[in-house]
């Protein structure tokens, strides 16, 4: 019994409830005559789409900047990368990798200034990150209207200036990762190996980063800034690096999302995109100042599992689509749960 006790305290009640909830959905699926293979194919696809966005949370949590509610800033870097590449009419895998290159450039610039700002407001980073995210999205809404894009597939039909709200990536890099080495598991389940491999490669990259000297210094800044300062680590520099990494990953994450989803969502698209990513990593077991790659993978799988399963199972069982309400309650409930546990951890020390 003691062992279970420790497991519960360590894993946290909220995560257990969510885990059981997802399990029950999978069990109920056949009862609600929902095809198991389509659900799993959906979950795997959505896992691939969201995983890098959740991975983007890790660097900032590790360095003690807290949960990155300013993810939209990274997403904007990704959108700029995508739109510029489409403007240059680059297609296929080259197009996608070029987009990633531009995104990395924009992401580094945005991340640098965003990191500098967060260093000035130590202690209330999350609130300011939220509003920096919101204001940058609102600002970009204006920019999408003003930036001189010419590609007819992107601008409004009747020759007006300004980009459409959603731009299809058809013919550019739609499913370019998904179809790479993809194989058909069952009649309606095609395994997107390319995307999953790319995502796991990114996870490996970040896992490796945290094994280097720079990565260990960054972790130390997160768990005890005074210790890091005493050991000669330049705290502010580490925090800026973590923010840049997080912003670039956010950009790459949205590119991976788009190539599978099929559309680039501009204007208010990225407005609320930070919350599902934050909720996912918390469901995976991360805390406000400690996150591992396993948290990312477990959290993304659990969260996306719930998002895919609730509509199908719920619909057939009680004929109402409650999935939107459940998503809001689960993701925001999880964030509040993590916020209230911060003090518990501090009291323990």
């Amino acid at each position, binding site marked *: 019994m003691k062992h279970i006790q420790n497991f519960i305290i360590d894993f946290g009640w909220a995560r257990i409830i969510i885990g059981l909830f997802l399990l029950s959905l999978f069990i109920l699926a056949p009862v609600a005559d929902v095809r198991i293979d389509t659900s799993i194919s959906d979950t795997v696809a959505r896992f691939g789409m969201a995983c890098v966005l959740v991975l983007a949370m890790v660097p900032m949590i590790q360095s003690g900047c807290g949960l990155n509610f300013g993810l939209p800033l990274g997403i904007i870097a990704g959108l700029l990368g995508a739109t510029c590449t489409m403007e240059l009419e680059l297609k296929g895998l080259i197009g996608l990798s070029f987009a990633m290159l531009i995104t990395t450039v924009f992401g580094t610039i945005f991340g640098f200034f965003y990191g500098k700002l967060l260093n000035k407001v130590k202690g209330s980073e999350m609130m300011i990150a939220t509003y920096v995210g919101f204001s940058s999205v609102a600002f970009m809404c204006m920019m999408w209207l003003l930036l001189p894009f010419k590609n007819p597939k992107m601008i409004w039909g009747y020759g007006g200036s300004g980009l459409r709200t959603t731009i299809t990536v058809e013919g550019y890099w739609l499913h370019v990762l998904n179809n790479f080495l993809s194989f058909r598991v069952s009649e309606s389940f095609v395994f997107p190996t390319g995307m999953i491999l790319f995502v796991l490669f990114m996870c490996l990259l970040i896992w490796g980063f945290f094994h280097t*000297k720079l990565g260990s210094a960054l972790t130390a800044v997160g768990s*005890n800034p005074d210790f890091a300062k*005493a*050991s000669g680590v*330049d705290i502010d520099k580490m925090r800026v690096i973590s923010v840049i990494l997080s912003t670039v990953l956010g950009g790459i994450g949205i590119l991976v999302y788009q190539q599978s989803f099929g559309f680039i969502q501009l204007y208010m698209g990225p407005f609320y995109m930070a919350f599902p990513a934050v909720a996912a990593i918390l469901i995976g077991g991360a805390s406000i100042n400690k996150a591992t790659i396993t948290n990312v993978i477990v959290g993304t799988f659990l969260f996306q599992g719930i998002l895919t399963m609730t509509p199908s199972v719920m619909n057939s069982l009680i004929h109402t689509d409650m999935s939107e309400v459940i998503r809001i309650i689960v993701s925001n409930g999880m964030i509040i749960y993590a916020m209230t546990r911060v003090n518990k951890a501090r009291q323990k*020390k």
Partner: protein
Amino acid sequence: MTTSGPLLQVEGVSKDFFGTNVLSDINFNLEKGEILGLVGENGAGKSTLMNILFGMKVISSTGGYSGQILFEGKQTSFKNPLEALNSGIGMVHQEFSLIPGLTATENILLNSEPTRYNFLTELFGPRLSTLDRYEMQIRAIAAINKLGFRLDQDMLVSQMPVGHKQFTEISRELDRKNIKLLVLDEPTAVLTESEAQILLKSLKTLASDGIGIIIISHRLSEIMDITDKVVVLCDGKIIHTSKTSDTTVDKIAECMVGRSGVLESSKAHAQKEQAQKEIILKVENLWVDMPGEHIEDVSFDVIRGEIFGIGGLAGQGKLGIPNGIMGYFESGGNVYFSGKKCNLGNPREALDQEMAFVSEDRKGVGLLLDEPIDWNIVFTAMQTKDQFLKSYLWGLIKWRDSKAMSKVSKQYINELEIKCLNEWQHVRQLSGGNQQKICLAKAFVLDPKLLFVSEPTRGIDVGAKSIVLDTLRKINKQKGTTIIMVSSELEEMRGICDRIAIVDKGKIAGILPADSSSISFGKLMAGVGETL
């Protein structure tokens, strides 16, 4: 109702924390209108005595105390500080508990403001009554006048000079309705000389109004000139109590510090003959802005290969010296390390010049509690000297070399006898003694030329203490590392150091060879000794 008996009688009070005896058989009493000076080194039991008097939870939660305390002849034991306050005992702590944004009046009357009744209090409780600003003004002025100090009661505390803050805090206690006994903990620590004189004079006027006063202070000159009676505490026992007029500063200083007069035999090595006399560290007018351990203007030299001690009472600034030089806190002045001037304020530069520091704040600065032991030991060396790293792609990627890390951790675990399951155990689960050994190991891995060690033996078991001290001696003898040890355990320092500097009120009161008499050390600590 002025009872003829003494205001406060403490009879046979003793207290132990988990077996270690902190107070044993304390007896003294205090008459109305009498001022008693309570003197003693750190850890002598003064604060525990006060906690008992005020019924702090820390006492009742650790098994209460034996013996009894009579207040105005009645047997009392207060369950919490509020009860003590209501029955007329006020306490002024060392660090201010004032609200910066409120005026002096509002602070003096905090949570005991006079109010005017209105109907809503019937419904929602007394806190909806409005404040009677006029009445507050009167009570504040009355409390301030009791002190005889001209204080503007409408000024915001945030704009007040430090002295005024102290007077505001004292007048808050005086405002209590039936204040009979006032306890002050180091009241003059933050005051200038003139403000201290005014405070002492006003305390005298309070005493003449019949209020009993207990002053906890180590400024023997002030104790001598204001108190009627002196009680000297040492290691939980009263070893000297008498009328102030019958005793002298030397007597008090000697009792305050000297345990056994004879030095511990373990100080084997005779006074090291400083042949080469080369100065490794020269410090000139160093100031350090460390909260609670402020350094005004300190200058001293340390000879290569020496074990240099820095002593002094808590809050006088001794801890500020290593923290300032290592760049943990804002500091200024000139510090020359083996001849080269180093600029202060950046820990990296100090570490690059082969200086290492074992901080007094183990959990806060010294350790990564949620990381394994090998991480903690190796981290600083890894960051500053690129040790324990395998580099690939011509040094582009520096990968943690976990094999080298666990090898060096195993080596120090055996050498320092660190009791742990393995080198991957999280440091949070280890005992205080083992954690301190890990901090030491972290510094030794850097193989520094100069090692600062701050409060190395505080809060650790006796076994660990001797290992820590022996290792420091061994390092100093074998590798010739100069060690600067900051500690409040004067006896330990006399056993291991060559010379000891005493810090008082942010300045060096004096530097004495380790084997000089305890009286001279006591007087330096009490701010009355003459510097060497």
